[in-house]
């Protein structure tokens, strides 16, 4: 029977399957961060048990830590307590920590450091108490977010109880125009199909436009699978994947490498395998995308207009749009180009890798940011930060008048004090534009690093294609 990439990985990880019960699925890699793990470790203590496989468990600090400096102790008492708790928990249970004190040179957003360290590899099952764990699927891994009870289960048993999800192919044909990037692909898919379309499915992204993406771009696409409702998004591994992994800290070496690659080559979906659903997008006609509303599905091409609720037949959809436009203080039919902004945030597990920073720097080089706009550039990891500084990108940003910060989630989730003020507009390269996500009362436009950088210069929503050199 021809099988999909997902089915091959799933079948290879089923430990047990009782009738009428979910499968017991073995987990190869468990990533842990400070916000969704404390109650899970406490659960282990209450049961008097150890972490089953500390060698398959790695922790970092990213959500709540400050990004203005690396001074410790940190000022926010609650956040300080949470990170101290992670230090205690990882020490007590024998887990490697990439923290502010321990191995700080490798600290970063959990979905940036996994791939960067070579922990993320094809064919693996990967979980983390964070919904954007879908990012790692870019390597041809089955990777998804879990809640804290499930974190406790994986710490205890290295397994998860899972019902087999359905599979959906997301086919992207054609070729992107200049100025249109991976972020625009995924925003367009979500705008086209909505935020619930992927519920119950694992996405596999296929097609010419996906194949030519580099690994960082593939991660951007898979990252936002969850915004389309899918817990996981995957891309078949190929030479691009293997080249990225080769030589990284945890990558297999020597004869083990050759053996691993020959196994990984068997993973792609077989000819004739079928999916439960199919979605598609044409890359040729895509323009830079931007959201206008309060969920990631409320998006349009940057030259588009805010939709008119009066045009929506479905009453609940109409009401949802009215509410969103009220929150965003945007008018039906107004163009998005030219909309004034207050803040630009370039960062998050969606777009904080070196290629994202290079994109932003290419636009900002030799230009000044608009004096009315605060621009924050937050690298995804300490390693990304060093790499950017070695290339001189930090100077490009500083000379343009942008803030160059330390690695963390920062204004993506606004837990650490990096946040919008009520009523402010931001262009953000992150993944969620929910009400209050980037600060109570803050209003978010999601876009690519190119669009964000262009808008930082002009102070208004801008079509980056007019600024490319």
């Amino acid at each position: 029977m021809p099988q999909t990439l997902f089915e091959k990985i799933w079948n290879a990880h089923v430990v047990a399957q009782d009738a009428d019960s979910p499968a017991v699925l073995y987990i190869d890699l468990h990533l842990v961060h400070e916000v969704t793990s404390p109650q899970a470790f406490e659960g282990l203590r209450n049961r008097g048990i150890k972490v089953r496989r500390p060698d398959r468990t790695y922790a970092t600090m990213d959500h709540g830590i400050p990004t203005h400096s690396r001074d410790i102790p940190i000022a926010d008492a609650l956040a300080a307590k949470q990170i101290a708790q992670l230090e205690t928990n990882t020490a007590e249970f024998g887990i490697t920590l990439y923290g502010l004190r321990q191995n700080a040179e490798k600290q970063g957003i959990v979905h940036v450091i996994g791939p960067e360290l070579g922990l993320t590899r094809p064919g693996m099952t990967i979980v983390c108490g964070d919904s954007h764990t879908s990012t790692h699927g870019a390597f041809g891994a089955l990777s998804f977010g879990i809640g804290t009870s499930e974190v406790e289960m994986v710490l205890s048993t290295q397994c998860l109880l899972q019902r087999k999800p359905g599979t959906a192919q997301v086919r992207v044909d054609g070729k992107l125009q200049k100025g249109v990037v991976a972020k625009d692909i995924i925003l367009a898919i979500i705008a086209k199909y909505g935020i619930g379309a992927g519920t119950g499915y694992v996405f596999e992204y296929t097609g010419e436009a996906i194949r030519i993406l580099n690994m960082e771009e593939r991660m951007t696409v898979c990252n936002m699978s969850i915004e389309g409702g899918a817990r996981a998004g995957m891309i078949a591994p190929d030479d691009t994947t293997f080249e990225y992994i080769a030589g990284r800290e945890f990558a297999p070496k020597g004869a083990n490498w050759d053996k691993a690659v020959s196994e990984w080559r068997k993973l792609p979906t077989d000819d004739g395998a079928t999916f439960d659903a199919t979605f598609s997008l044409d890359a040729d006609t895509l323009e830079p995308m931007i959201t206008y509303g309060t969920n990631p599905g409320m998006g349009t091409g940057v030259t588009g207009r805010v939709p008119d609720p009066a045009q929506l037949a479905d009453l609940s959809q109409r009401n949802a749009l009215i509410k969103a436009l009220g929150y965003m203080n945007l008018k039906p039919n107004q163009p998005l180009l030219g909309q004034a902004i207050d803040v630009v945030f370039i960062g998050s597990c969606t777009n904080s890798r070196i290629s994202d920073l290079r994109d932003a720097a290419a636009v900002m080089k030799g230009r000044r940011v608009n004096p009315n706009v605060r621009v924050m550039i937050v690298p995804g990891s300490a390693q990304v930060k060093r790499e950017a500084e070695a290339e001189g990108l930090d100077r490009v940003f500083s000379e343009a008048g942008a803030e160059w910060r330390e690695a963390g989630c920062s204004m993506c989730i606004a837990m650490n004090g990096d946040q919008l003020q009520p009523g402010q507009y931001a262009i953000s390269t992150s993944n969620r534009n929910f009400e209050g996500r980037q600060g109570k009362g803050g209003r978010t436009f999601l876009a690519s690093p190119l669009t964000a950088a262009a808008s930082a210069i002009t102070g208004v929503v801008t079509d980056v294609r007019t600024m490319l050199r």
Partner: protein
Amino acid sequence: MEKYTAYNSKIVALPNENVDTDQIIPARFLKVTDKIGLGDNLFSDWRYNADGNPKPDFILNHGEMKGRAILLAGDNFGSGSSREHAPWALTGYGFRAVISTSFADIFRNNSLKNGLLPIIVDKDTHAQLFSLCEEDPDTALAIDLTAQTLTLPDGRKVQFPIDGFSKTCLLNGIDEIGYVLHMDEKITAFESQDA
């Protein structure tokens, strides 16, 4: 976990669609290392003004809503992050069931592990429940997980789906982690074949 028994309750109707986890509990309340008191932060930005006073319009601030165990929500409830703080906040407040036409996958999983029943109904039933609440805000339902039914005030029963495993765990208060811990031998066998 406590056993999930049958009960009757009036409804809190919140018609908003796509209620995401940042609305259920904003991220600034995630800096906790326990699960205590999260019910106070449920729907915080809709529920309280900047000065911390309750917003009189928001439904949870209507006195008669206190103690109601059923939340009737708009389509696609619980999208967004994996934070289990969302069901912890809902159960902390006192909810035992959320009714919608669909739930985000991670939220649904998290709820089932915390004695919060995500009840999926079809569009017609959904609309009917909202109009019942509009006509009479004190509309009550009976929820019987064993029979998988909602009983409407007129006696009509609506069947809802749930997988057998989750149902058994909820009804008997079974700890899923304990269930998998008992599979130690199988896991060890899997690990040795994998090595």
